[in-house]
């Protein structure tokens, strides 16, 4: 008879194996199941840059980390409680991420001589020995899976592809779950391949029952549902939320969406998903290069559509000149940058926040562009929606910054109802009252915003271009005073946006005190955990996460000056910190990590302790 499972508050599991082992699918399945079970959660996939890196090597290891709990979860977790390793390489790469006395589940068939060699273990190494103090569960997954599927008519290769389901079944057993969500998923995925469906389900069940057979000496756990704010939830990944935010903004502005893009990691998923929304009138265009992608978007914006282009750092670099054009044309355009490790090709599958300067300053001439950054997977929805609203209502290109960490991470989302979303109001030009009235395409309203007049509007024919414009008429002008005036007007228009964005709020902590931690983007969850803990420990620490990076919220300076010290953690070599210092003359201190991976809460806590001493 089953013992009562041990109740835990939160758990972090890291699934790791060859990139061909189906680790991402396993992780996603476990996430869905966890979400449906009612836990709060946060996930982080970590895949190799090569599509099919050599089998069995450390370079080829794919990982998926999930942190779930009864309490609110803010990040995918630093160290893990459970490491599931499908082979020696996966074990070697990730063992250091396991907590002391953690649980290890290994597939012993991935630890044979060949695998040990591929993982570059020394000749006589026995990595699974000497792990006293850890809870080690060994299973020969290959053998067990083949055994479970012996009555199914499939080749060995196909059977071995079901190994991940065996392991998943076992982990479901461990956490006292049911198999339904995954069986449903498999049923719809393999609806036309009954034998493969049967094999996967059999393997999943075998893994689950294998738990029962081990039961006498293995514990089961339960992480009870979290007390989440009431409402209906779904799981969402950052890139998905970005897509939904864009489609929502298109609906709320009543503008059809055009998306011009060129494939690049980690932004391509946005293109994939948007291209399946033709039924929402979404037109996606896979261009010949990054420049053509933004060029087409500018053309669509000129034509009166909601135009979006997305890329990652290197692609954004290519778009630079065209962003300048959009700014001169004063047309709405959303530029999504899913940041990755740079410079140059850098670390395509790793995360970094090093394109803030690029977004702020990466163009020729005086070229201010508003910048909005998302701080979590679900926040991508709200942030990109707001970025789009600013672009449309203020007739300007706007940068929306996400990064690899939140783009691929997932968490539960209490999705909004469409009628709760704000309306977005395009500033279309009025048709001229009189036949021969001259239309002034660059006549601004009180917010410095020019009217959007699009082909087809009779009487509003006009010419725009990248050459400096005469104020009002938009005609080409080389007049020195006019140029200075126009540079200032374009700057003022962006500065004015500060009147339309919310004031900066504190995430938590006292309104004045010893240390303010200022973050932006994906560092949010980790900073929150660190600050949470330090507040409990009695420190005077507060946290502000900045979404609107250009222009800054009007009260930001005041907040910065309400603390003795300001610490700015960033996954870069110090960018926001320099802007804050320049803008507000505060002695903000940097905390930088440039390893392609997120901060751990402990690193932030240590930095705060350090700064408190100084």
């Amino acid at each position, binding site marked *: 008879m089953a013992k009562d499972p041990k109740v835990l508050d939160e758990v972090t599991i890291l699934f790791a194996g060859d990139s061909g082992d189906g680790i991402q699918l396993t992780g996603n399945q476990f996430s869905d199941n966890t979400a449906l079970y009612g836990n709060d959660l946060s996930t982080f996939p970590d895949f190799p840059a090569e599509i099919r890196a050599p089998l069995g090597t450390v370079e080829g290891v794919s990982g998926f980390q999930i942190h779930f709990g009864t309490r609110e979860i803010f990040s995918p977790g630093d160290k893990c409680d459970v490491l599931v390793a499908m082979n020696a390489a996966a074990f070697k790469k990730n063992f250091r991420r396991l907590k002391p006395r953690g649980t290890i589940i290994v597939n012993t068939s991935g630890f044979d001589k060949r695998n040990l060699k591929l993982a570059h273990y020394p000749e006589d190494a026995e990595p699974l020995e000497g792990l006293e103090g850890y809870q080690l569960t060994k299973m020969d997954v290959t053998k067990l899976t083949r055994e479970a599927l012996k009555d199914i008519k499939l080749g060995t290769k196909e059977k071995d592809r079901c190994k991940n389901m065996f392991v998943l079944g076992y982990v479901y057993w461990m956490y006292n779950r049911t198999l339904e969500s995954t069986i449903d998923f498999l049923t719809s995925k393999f609806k036309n391949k009954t034998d493969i469906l049967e094999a996967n389900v059999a393997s999943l069940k075998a893994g689950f029952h294998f738990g029962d057979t081990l039961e006498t000496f293995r514990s089961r756990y339960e992480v009870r549902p979290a007390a989440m704010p009431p409402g*209906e*939830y779904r799981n969402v990944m950052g890139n998905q939320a970005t897509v939904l935010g864009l489609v929502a903004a298109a609906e709320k502005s009543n503008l059809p969406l055009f998306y011009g893009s060129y494939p690049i990691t980690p932004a391509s998923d946005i293109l994939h998903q948007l291209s399946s929304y033709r039924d929402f009138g979404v037109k996606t265009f896979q261009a010949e290069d990054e420049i053509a992608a933004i060029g087409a978007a500018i053309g669509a914006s000129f034509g009166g559509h909601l135009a979006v282009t997305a890329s990652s750092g290197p692609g954004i670099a290519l778009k630079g000149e065209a962003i300048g054009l959009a700014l001169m044309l004063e047309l709405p355009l959303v530029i999504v940058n899913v940041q990755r490790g740079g410079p140059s090709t850098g670390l395509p599958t790793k995360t970094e926040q090093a394109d803030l300067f690029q977004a702020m300053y990466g163009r020729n001439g005086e070229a201010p562009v508003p910048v909005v950054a998302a701080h979590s997977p679900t926040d991508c929805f709200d942030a990109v929606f707001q970025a789009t609203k600013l672009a449309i209502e203020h007739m300007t290109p706007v940068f929306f910054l996400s990064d690899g960490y939140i783009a691929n991470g997932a968490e539960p989302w209490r999705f909004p109802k469409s009628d709760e979303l704000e309306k977005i109001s395009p500033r279309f030009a009025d048709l001229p009252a009189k036949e021969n009235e001259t239309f002034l395409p660059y006549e601004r309203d009180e917010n410095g915003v020019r009217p959007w007049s699009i082909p087809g509007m009779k009487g509003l024919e006009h010419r725009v271009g990248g050459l400096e414009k005469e104020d009002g008429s938009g005609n080409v002008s080389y007049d020195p005073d006019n140029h200075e005036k126009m540079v200032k007007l374009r700057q003022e228009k962006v500065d004015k946006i500060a009147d339309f964005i919310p004031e900066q709020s504190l995430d938590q902590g006292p309104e004045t005190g010893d240390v303010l931690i200022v973050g932006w983007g994906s560092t949010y969850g980790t900073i929150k955990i660190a600050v949470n803990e330090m507040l409990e420990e009695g420190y005077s620490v507060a946290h502000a996460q900045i979404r609107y990076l250009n222009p800054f919220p009007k009260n930001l300076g005041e907040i910065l000056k309400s603390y003795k010290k300001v610490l700015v953690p960033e996954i870069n070599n110090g960018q926001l910190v320099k802007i804050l210092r320049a803008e507000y003359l505060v002695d903000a201190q940097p905390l930088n990590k440039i390893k392609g991976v997120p901060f751990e809460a402990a690193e932030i806590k240590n930095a705060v302790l350090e700064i408190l001493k100084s």
Partner: protein
Amino acid sequence: MSESNTANKLSPKDFSSDQDVRWCPGCGDYSILKQVQTIMPEIGVPREDIVFISGIGCSSRFPYYMNTFGMHSIHGRATTIASGLKAVRPELSVWIITGDGDSLSIGGNHLIHLLRRNFNVNILLFNNQIYGLTKGQYSPTSEQGKRTKSTPHGSLDHPFNPLALCMGADATFVSRTMDRDPKQLRSVLMQANQHKGTSLVEIYQNCNVFNDGTFARFTDKRTKEESTIFIEDGKPLIFDQGKRGIVLDGFNPKIVDMEGRSADDLWIHDVNDRVKAEILTRFFEDPSDETALPRPFGVFYQEDRPCYEEMLEQQVKEAEDRSSNRNLDQLLRGNRTWWAE
């Protein structure tokens, strides 16, 4: 957008903007501007539905002089902007104004991709075989050995044959005309406008400041007849005031004397014949060579192929028909949700 076909009532003057034209006096661009303005009232499109988009270069100032919607964009990218505009607004009449540097050097990649996608736009490629706006460097169509400011020892680059390049990119309308022959220019422009798909019009344009007379052989009265051939669908390839013609010997074009020969024996131009059009684009020898084949002007090739924007509209329509109950709330909910109490 607008329903009434007011274009009929307009005159060429209505298509001229209030901006002073700023090309050098004597520049071939003037003639092209004039002919474009002349045909505008005849194309049957309301003025507000016409858009001129250019890149950078002398010719790219063109949109400022047209009283239509227009955009003077960035170097080489007019093609990309036109693609996006056409993708979302298929009903517009979109004209791309570009030069040899703009479309064949910095924008070369975009040009070939536009051609293969076959958006229904017209490209007017002003070829003057020089960089004019930057004051006289050789261009990708300059003849090899050309001495310019950037090539005092003569250029080393083998030049592009623009029309052969466009044929290679599966263009559906390929043509050539010149600034100095307004009638022929107008006729080609009209045909380009009528073609559904990307219409490529190469226009030999004299830059009288930096490359004066580079096409003189084709435009001067004294040499024009012997060095050019005007091709028309269904008509024999005949030139030099009817004195000479072209026959095809296998795949080899040959000049023949017309004395004692019927025009029926000549190569009869067929705009739908891809292979022959490709041969025609190879009539590209150095015109100063006495034995050179005459340079063809007119429509080389035309093909009906679905346009990108049409197919895109079709996909959207089909998707919308399939899921009649699409709504944002469903999309936001996704496939699997749960409730927290």
